[in-house]
């Protein structure tokens, strides 16, 4: 169809930026899904403004969506975009610094009005002055294009203008040689009830597509071949959604009804939104009056025999601390999801961080050990959530499942597992009332039996006061307290015997081991990968299990000259490693509410090697 040159690329990063009202998240998602359908590997990074919708046209109102697609393995949304699509001056101002010189800017000139320039804080029009020198600027009157295309339609101008994001999408589809069909189908589903909008958005998209094809402003298009991806069925999924699915899968495998006790909070709320959709699974979502009621209701559910979960973010986590301590003492299964955000206090709710790790370890009164797991990627949220359920039920313990705003909102292609392949999760139900003691432990797991109200003959009492070994009766006996304290700790540390050994990507010994956890996986993996390709002696260990740590981790750490621990905090895993193994590590910390760039990590690795 096109007569223009087509250039092959192995990867490209595009950032869509506009006003919160411009639908950039949607545009980015469409581009992402279509690219997935054509077989590219990819990763995305939606970047929201602060919660409240700021006045249109202002910097705080800018919302952006970055996606990297490739023929090669893609593990991050890309350090910096190759193409920046901006729907207004504020979007340009807020995002220009992310674009390297030589990068391409696609700008909707119709929005570069005096008024909008002023709102964005521009004294003069950057499209006219020299400030964009060194960039390749493609000026398009996207609004006009759209309005013209929709001229015939009997629709008010406002609604017409709203279609301009699809016009922009159409242009990108042509530039990167993507089919329009997937989006067409989506539009048809989405606006099934409003045929006029189906037509409008399709027309707008084609207008952009054709304009890109014909105009000289865009000299060539690009081709990104499908990536070498394991065959199978795929879908793209965001971290919070995957996490919710993992919990549902866990409840199915355990044969227990899922109970979510929660209170909305950014960036964890989507887990509530998602789970509230699946009542056919018997999922109960309890939106409590606050986080304390949320976790207490969950513990009540657990006491009653449910698969109990509570989800929150940092400040809510703080509020749950006392109740979590009760779950530790009463040894009830509970999954506590903390989708971390930038702190301290309210901090920057829409920005990502890894600074609740030590709170998870120590944020309770008394010696109060529990299990801690961390998700590494949007799709990994599914597996790790299921693992959290398994551990909670197998060991009768609360499990803190750490995610973060970056992977919670980010998404990636997910090779769908076969549910038949999931292992069932066993519950420890006591069988003989005459033998039953609430704290009589399983020798291997040290888990106590789980008798729930309604089981005849197993009536018993539990509570937050220290309890006697075996019976659990209230006891102030000094030696019993010491014994119980050590047993609680031993039970958690003993989990290490049941979890997989830590895997290392790269040489078994060498100059540098990069030790990471949580949402930084993609960037760290990519940086290490790059270093290895450059022949450097660098390995990568990414821990999913933080308490207990994998049983072989200590010996792994001893196989490298230096241990680099990159974290989006001020060195929390570093502290744990040092105090646990007495091994010195090199913390590499970033605390900006933003994920690591691969380059930042590459530099850190090189600095250590130097």
């Amino acid at each position, binding site marked *: 169809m096109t007569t223009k040159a087509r250039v092959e690329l192995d990867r490209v990063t595009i950032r869509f930026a506009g006003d919160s009202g411009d639908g950039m998240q949607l545009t980015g998602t469409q581009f992402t899904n279509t690219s997935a*359908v054509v*077989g590219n590997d990819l990763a995305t990074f939606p970047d929201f403004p602060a919660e409240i919708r700021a006045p249109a046209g202002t910097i705080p109102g800018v919302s952006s969506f970055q996606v990297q697609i490739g023929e090669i393995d893609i593990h991050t949304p890309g350090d910096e975009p190759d193409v920046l699509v901006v729907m207004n001056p504020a979007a340009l101002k807020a995002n220009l610094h992310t674009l390297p010189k030589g990068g391409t800017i696609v700008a909707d000139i119709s929005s570069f009005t005096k008024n909008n320039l002023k709102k964005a804080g521009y004294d003069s029009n950057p499209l006219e002055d020299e400030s964009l020198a060194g960039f390749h600027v493609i000026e398009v009157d996207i609004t006009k294009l759209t309005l013209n295309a929709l001229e015939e339609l009997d629709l008010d101008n406002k609604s017409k203008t709203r279609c301009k994001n699809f016009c922009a999408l159409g242009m990108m589809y042509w530039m990167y040689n993507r089919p329009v069909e*997937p989006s067409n189908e*989506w539009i048809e589903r989405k606006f099934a009830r409003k045929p006029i909008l189906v037509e409008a958005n399709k027309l707008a998209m084609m207008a952009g597509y054709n304009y890109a094809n014909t105009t000289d402003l865009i000299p060539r298009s690009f081709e990104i*071949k*499908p*990536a*070498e991806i394991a*065959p*199978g*069925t*795929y*879908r793209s*999924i965001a971290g919070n959604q995957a996490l919710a*699915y993992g919990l*549902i*899968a866990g409840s199915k495998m355990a044969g227990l*009804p899922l*109970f979510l*006790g929660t209170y909305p909070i950014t960036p964890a709320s989507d887990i509530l939104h998602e789970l509230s959709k699946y*009542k*056919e*699974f*018997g999922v*109960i979502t*309890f939106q*409590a*009056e606050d986080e*304390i*009621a949320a976790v*207490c*209701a*969950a513990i*009540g*559910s657990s*006491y*009653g*025999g*449910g698969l109990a979960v509570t989800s929150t973010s940092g400040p809510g986590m703080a509020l749950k601390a*006392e*109740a979590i301590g*009760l779950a530790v003492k*009463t040894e009830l299964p509970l999954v506590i999801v903390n989708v971390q955000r930038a702190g301290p206090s309210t901090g920057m709710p829409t920005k990502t961080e890894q600074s609740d790790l030590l709170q998870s370890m120590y944020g309770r009164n008394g010696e109060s050990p529990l299990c801690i797991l961390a998700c590494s990627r949007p799709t990994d949220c599914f597996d790790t959530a299921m693992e959290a359920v398994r551990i909670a039920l197998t060991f009768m313990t609360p499990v803190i499942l750490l995610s973060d705003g970056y992977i919670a909102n980010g998404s990636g292609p997910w090779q*769908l*597992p076969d*549910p038949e392949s999931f292992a069932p999760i066993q519950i420890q139900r006591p069988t003989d009332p005459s033998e039953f003691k609430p704290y009589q432990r399983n020798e291997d797991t040290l888990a106590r039996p789980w008798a*729930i*109200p*309604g*089981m*005849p*003959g*197993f*009536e*018993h*009492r*539990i*509570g937050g*006061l220290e309890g006697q070994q075996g019976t659990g009766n*209230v006891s102030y006996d000094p030696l019993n307290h010491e014994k119980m304290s050590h047993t609680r700790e031993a039970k958690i540390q003993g989990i290490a015997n049941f979890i997989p050994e830590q895997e290392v990507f790269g040489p078994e010994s060498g100059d540098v081991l990069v030790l990471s956890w949580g949402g930084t996986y993609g960037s760290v993996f990519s940086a290490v990968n790059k270093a290895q390709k450059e022949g450097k002696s660098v390995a990568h260990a990414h821990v999913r299990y933080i308490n207990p740590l994998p049983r072989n981790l200590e010996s792994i750490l001893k196989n490298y000259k230096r241990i680099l621990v990159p974290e989006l905090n001020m060195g929390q895993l570093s502290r744990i490693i040092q105090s646990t193994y007495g091994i010195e590590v090199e913390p590499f910390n970033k605390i900006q509410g933003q994920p690591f760039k691969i380059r930042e990590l590459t530099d850190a690795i090189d600095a250590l090697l130097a």
Partner: protein
Amino acid sequence: MSETTTLTKKDFKSDQDVRWCPGCGDYAILNAVQATLPELGIPKEKFAIISGIGCSSRFPYYMDTYGFHTIHGRAAAFATGLKLTNPGLSVWMISGDGDSLSIGGNHFIHLIRRNVDLNLLLFNNEIYGLTKGQYSPTSQEGIITKSTPYGSVDRNFSASSLAMGAESSFFARAIDTDPKYLQEVLVRAAAHKGTSVVEILQNCVIFNDKAHGWTTERSTQDDHQLRLEHGKPMIFGADKNKGIRLNGLKLEVVTLGEDGITEADLLVHDETDENIAYFLTKMQAPEFPTPLGVFRAVEAPVYNEQVHAQIEAIREKKGEGSLQKLLFSGDTWEVKGESNA
């Protein structure tokens, strides 16, 4: 259920020795509950007793049922989660005035708002007993306690008024000094669908002795207590000659016989009238007798039933959820085997 009809009080006594101060009103309440539960025709294993923290909250340890002594002020939330997950249970929540009206105030009003089907026994001794005697939100103003050596300047409020503010579907009041009457009230509470709040005026002999003396003092109790009876005029007094009359929007105490006042002039108690219950909460000693019995018992949507009804309705429509369907929903795409070189 044959095994349940044979249950006796003894079946509900645990092997733990009861540890309250000698003379504490809690003993009588424990007795009353142990005497009531066997009468309800519910199998023993279906009772769950959930408490917060306080002297009163030690209660579950003394009951040979399932029991959970949780943390301070949060019992309502634990009980809500328990009932939602295990709706077949008969859930009894035990709490004190500090536990439910101070630290637990928010859960108290939201429990009542949602109208979760359980029974809340509120032991109101107008003091923090377990921590050795600080005033509570129900303590009389001016009270001298460990934390108010010069007298409290904190305005108090009442459990009944607060419960009505949260639109309670069942509220009743009883006293530790009349266990028989307490048992009657407990039976009513158990029968009600929804959150049944039973305020029990309880005496803390050590830190707030005789806080309810005006109401419970044997010699004057008939003149100081109004025993509510549904559909009956509000009459009280040793000589059954005093009554409550509504005068415009105000209640007043009148004497039958005096200036032609007859029973016909008296306010007739109606548990189903939410407004009467409101006025009862405003009856303060010494002007008025202390109302005892069921203030209000009205039908209202029950949260746990609604939750399960919604789930069932959706299961009806969609059938039991399938993981396969769930995972493979949304936009999926196939990646074929052969490489794309």
